[in-house]
């Protein structure tokens, strides 16, 4: 049983998803039960995987017992275990929130939700470049349908852009994979790393082209500077639990950049080593600047949170662009924090919109809240955490990233990150004071259900928890960064099982 644990994060949502798709309407209670149980199981599996990976051993699962480099493998190392657990934690908050009623606004919510989880988990675990493409498509197909869940003009409009852009991105992904396969003759990432280290010089140009095309594709998923214009609209139009789950989708792009370029184009790649670094570094700074303009200009709370997602993407990319293990460790801590907090803020924004009825999440004068004490308290926690103020987790994450910059990078990084934090602070305090203080009339919204409160508290609770557990978490991310900095360990574990320590 233990050796099959790695494949469970893909299989559990797959079977749950199939089960949930049997009936399109009705059986609401059963569907919710199955959806929440499957997601809860994923959390348990995630914890088990994390405790296994924490030892530093890299374990692989050869599907169909075809050994690497020939078969498709799922690889478990510290990074993938962390991402799988993070996805499960985020999804549990989102799915419980959805059970308050959002899931019944359209059909097949829970089934699609599970299939999307399957795609995300698969993308985190796979050790094969083409398989990564397949899992990207699985998660995208589910996300297209989830984005349109509930219908409405804004969603359809955002959906057309999102789908067309991602289809074009998929074509580019295939071209890049084709180029890399043509130049190296393999699709297994670890095998590709060894082939690239002994690459004949005349193929270096081809591999560079393929690698940078991959960067464009991952950049589209992660929403970096010239490729982010789809994100604010899509995220602010999506139903709240879906938007919360989408908080991990940009991180799939970040993860892919981290994985592919640290493993395939690591130190052993010779002249091709770290070829993404200059691009990622400057684009990350640009992303942060553009996102803070968006944060200041947003006139809607959901749009504001969508731009805050972009800010976090820029900050994470800067961590990749610095290219040192310290920076990777810092960015992983910040990744855990920003995923859970922005997910929680999307849920909270929906609750706020629900209470204000007509005014919705627009930042205008509206009706007062029924439960304004708790809502404003949670908003304060979320805002303090996401803007990066002490004492919550955002401050620690940003501090780690600022500290990781070396002397040449500091003049660029420090002002940008600090100014971005200031912009977020200004925008959030303006939003908060408009929402909670400038109100008139009688409260009209429905009483919010316990499930919604649970979902938001579950995700925003990460902010104080990550401060309390900052020691163990940063130890783990530090170990993860060291593991990523040593791609040879992965190559040995997969291709030369005899020599593995």
């Amino acid at each position, binding site marked *: 049983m233990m050796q099959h644990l790695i494949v469970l994060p893909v299989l559990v949502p797959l079977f749950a998803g199939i089960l949930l798709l049997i009936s399109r309407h009705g059986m609401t209670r059963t569907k919710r039960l199955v959806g929440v149980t499957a997601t809860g199981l994923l959390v348990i599996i995630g914890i088990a995987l994390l405790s296994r990976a924490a030892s530093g051993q890299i374990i692989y699962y050869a599907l169909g017992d075809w050994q690497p480099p020939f078969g498709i493998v799922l690889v478990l190392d510290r990074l993938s275990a962390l991402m799988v657990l993070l996805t499960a934690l985020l999804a549990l908050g989102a799915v419980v929130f959805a059970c308050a009623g959002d899931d019944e606004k359209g059909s097949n919510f829970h089934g699609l939700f599970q299939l999307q989880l399957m795609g995300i988990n698969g993308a985190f675990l796979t050790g094969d470049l*083409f398989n990564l493409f397949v899992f990207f498509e699985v998660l995208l197909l589910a996300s297209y349908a989830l984005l*349109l869940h509930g219908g409405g003009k804004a969603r359809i409009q955002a959906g057309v852009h999102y789908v067309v852009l991602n289809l*074009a991105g998929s*074509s580019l992904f*295939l071209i890049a*994979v*084709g180029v890399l396969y*043509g130049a190296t003759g393999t699709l297994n990432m670890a095998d590709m790393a060894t082939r690239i280290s002994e690459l004949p010089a005349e193929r270096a140009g081809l591999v560079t082209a393929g690698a940078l095309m991959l960067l464009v594709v991952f950049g589209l998923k992660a929403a970096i500077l010239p490729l982010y214009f789809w994100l604010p609209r899509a995220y602010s139009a999506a139903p709240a639990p879906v938007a919360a789950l989408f908080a991990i989708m940009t991180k799939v792009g970040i993860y892919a950049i981290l994985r592919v370029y640290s493993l395939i184009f690591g130190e052993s790649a010779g002249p091709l080593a770290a070829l993404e670094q200059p691009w990622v570094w400057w684009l990350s700074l640009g992303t942060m600047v553009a996102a803070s303009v968006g944060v200041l200009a947003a006139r809607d709370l959901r749009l504001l949170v969508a731009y805050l997602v972009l800010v976090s993407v820029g900050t994470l990319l800067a961590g990749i662009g610095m290219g040192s293990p310290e920076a990777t460790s810092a960015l992983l801590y910040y990744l855990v924090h920003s995923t859970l907090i922005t997910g929680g803020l999307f849920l909270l924004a929906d609750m706020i919109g629900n209470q204000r009825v007509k005014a919705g999440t627009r930042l205008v004068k509206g009706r007062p809240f029924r439960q304004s004490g708790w809502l404003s308290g949670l908003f304060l926690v979320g805002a303090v955490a996401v803007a990066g103020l002490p004492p919550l987790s955002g401050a620690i994450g940003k501090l780690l990233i600022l500290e990781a910059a070396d002397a040449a990078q500091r003049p660029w990084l420090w002002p940008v990150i600090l100014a971005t934090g200031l912009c977020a602070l200004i925008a959030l305090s303006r939003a908060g004071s408009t929402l909670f203080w400038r109100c008139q009339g009688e409260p009209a919204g429905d009483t919010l259900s316990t499930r919604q409160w649970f979902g938001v508290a579950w995700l925003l609770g990460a902010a104080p928890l990550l401060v309390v557990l900052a020691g163990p978490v940063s130890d783990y991310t530090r170990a993860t960064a060291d593991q990523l900095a040593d791609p040879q360990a992965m190559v040995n574990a997969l291709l030369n099982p005899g020599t593995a320590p």
Partner: protein
Amino acid sequence: MESLYAITTGILSACGLYLTLRGRTFPVVVGLTLLSYAVNLFLFSMGGLTTDGAAIINGAADYADPLPQALVLTAIVIGFAMTAFVVILAMRARADMGNDHVDGRKQDIGETPR
């Protein structure tokens, strides 16, 4: 053969790219389809183009690389599903917005708003 193959792939992707950048949803869908055809052809050629190669490695020295064929098969299936989805989405957008512009706006396609 190589140059013919390359020219075909190039023309297909150029047409696909041009149509994808159009303003109405139908050309965009056709453009994406052409683009995925071009990509499939491209993937297929990545194993190297051979004629008269054995399909299965059976001690034969001259065989066709089977992996790109498997990749193309997967890519075709996924591309097909995606095209079906985007067609339905475009029809839904046409019904909900009242026009077939990708941004859902009338004035951008030369029609006067009513």
